[in-house]
């Protein structure tokens, strides 16, 4: 299954590595990464497309646990 993740991250050192690394370690292969600094300059908006065999709930809960992850929304790619 392919999933699209929309993430809001604290713009902190290591935040990007932490999110992508966590997804990979939990069995979701990144296919596409895209993002930008939000207008307030304190946050990133990151869009990540991943592929994995497990369901999206696990991915969402694991990423939501990360301190730098302020918001995560996971949707299944058509």
């Amino acid at each position: 299954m392919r999933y699209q993740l929309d993430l809001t991250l604290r713009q902190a050192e290591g935040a990007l590595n932490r999110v992508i690394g966590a997804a990979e370690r939990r069995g979701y292969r990144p296919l596409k990464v895209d993002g930008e600094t939000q207008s307030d300059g304190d946050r990133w908006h990151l869009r990540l497309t991943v592929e994995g065999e497990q369901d999206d709930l696990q991915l969402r809960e694991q990423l939501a646990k990360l301190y730098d992850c302020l918001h995560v929304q996971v949707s299944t790619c058509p």
Partner: protein
Amino acid sequence: MNASQWLVKALLDEGVDTIFGYPGGAIMPFYDALHGSPLRHILVRHEQGAAFAANGYARASGRVGVCVATSGPGATNLITGIADAMLDSVPMVCITGQVPTGLMGTDAFQEVDVFGMTMPVVKHSFLVRRAEDLPSVLHEAFRLARNGRPGPVLIDLPKDVQIADASELPAYVPAVRMPLPAAGEAGLHAAVALMAHARQPVIYAGGGIVLGEAVDAFRVFAEAAQLPVVQTLKGLGSLPDEHPLNLGMLGMHGSRAANLAVQEADLLIVVGARFDDRATGRLDGFAPHARVIHLDADPAEIGKRRSADVAVLGELSTSLFRLTPAVGAQRHARNGSARAAWTATCCERAAEQAPRYDYPGPDIHAPAMLRELSQRAPAAVVCCDVGQHQMWVAQHWAFQHPRQHLSSGALGAMGFGLPAAIGAQLEDPSAQIICVSGDGSFLMNVQELATVARYQLPIKILLLDNQALGMVRQWQTLFFERRHSEIDLSDNPDFVALASAFGIAAHSVATQAGLGDAIDAWLAHDGPALLHVAIDAAAGVWPLVPPNRSNAEMLDGDADELAPLPLPEKHPSKTTAITEEIPDAIST
């Protein structure tokens, strides 16, 4: 005041009384600030010892353990202890020195990216590039370490930041432990409804119970429910060992009664456990007829390995408190008599299948020795290493509370036992601390005998010596056609002479005849003491569920082939509709 001096004062303000560490180049300003301060520093002899000691301190108390190391090798040596804390949810704050910010990224002397290296094994980490960030970072580090599901937090502190001016920094505001949100009503009501339908429920108790300070609430819940209880390695002691509802540990080296009950159950009430593979065995054969109510503090554990029919997320003690009146009332409601009969059957089986300790012959039988020792020292805190002795302790020690059992559960880190015992002893100098180790594990952090001797910690070390890596040997015997590859430790040092060289009293015993007196003298010794016990290299840990097998396929030491446990002929349907609700029975 520089930032290091501010940090030492802030740690004291946070309530930290003891830290474990080892100095070096990039952390020298911090150690300079430590000089003459009331913050007690325990000088270990290897940074891994510092991490495990802080880990043991935290496990024994529930407080945040703190360790310190320099950059480079000092920092990398901490990592095993940090990983252990992450996997077993132990609250720790780990402070590492780093090369000055101007040298970072230049492959400077003793520069490693410990911030990056530890990312998968910390709850969170901070790299402090400006002294003015220190107050918020320290506060967040302690808050994160102890709140929610506990875990380790790393603070990497470059040397120039350590000496930066901190005279304008605000006073430190200690972090407080915040209770988790209570579970929602819907989950509690659904749990009660599911329990009402069950005829063969089993309570599955995990390490989350003690982490959530929910031992008392759990005991009240189990007493009210009068249902059989199985415990994970880290859940041991949630019910006292001798409690009539306690069926023992489940899983790979679990008791037959516990595994059989789970395999036959029509409902698992999982409290603070995570369906670890060592507990479940082959997952698709685990509790095949059971529905699942999963109570936990961590949403990410729900459905991670086994889907839950009902999830009860939130502070465990509150959830258990809310459910207790309902489960008590259910004893006298529909299916109450069936559940009572089921409980009686499980408990009778546990009694019938209890381990026997009448081992014949002159040799020392480790399970019998450990059982006897646990009866002689019922309040002791046992710090285990990893291997056969760890499983014998789990199977045969009569734990009264989970904080009596400090064991590297998920990481399974050999070398954990001795430094963890140091941490536990320093946390409570009046406690009786027993380190149970094996000859393989003991040599992994043997240098910490120097720490034991330096601080005259009255730790009692029980060293079970089979001159082999016993657990690996057992698996090679069973699953690798007896090819014993690189497990021979028959050239072990003279452990009595070794301990004596560190100034620690030591004695060796090899036969049953001398064991009782040797244990008496060892326990009575005023100060640290090591008892070296020679045991048979061929001794195994039984029962054993082979890898990739169901818990129904327990292997016994007397059997040449796998002997599947008998299962009942009729199983409850998994598709039974849940229609009954007893909302009024939920306590508010």
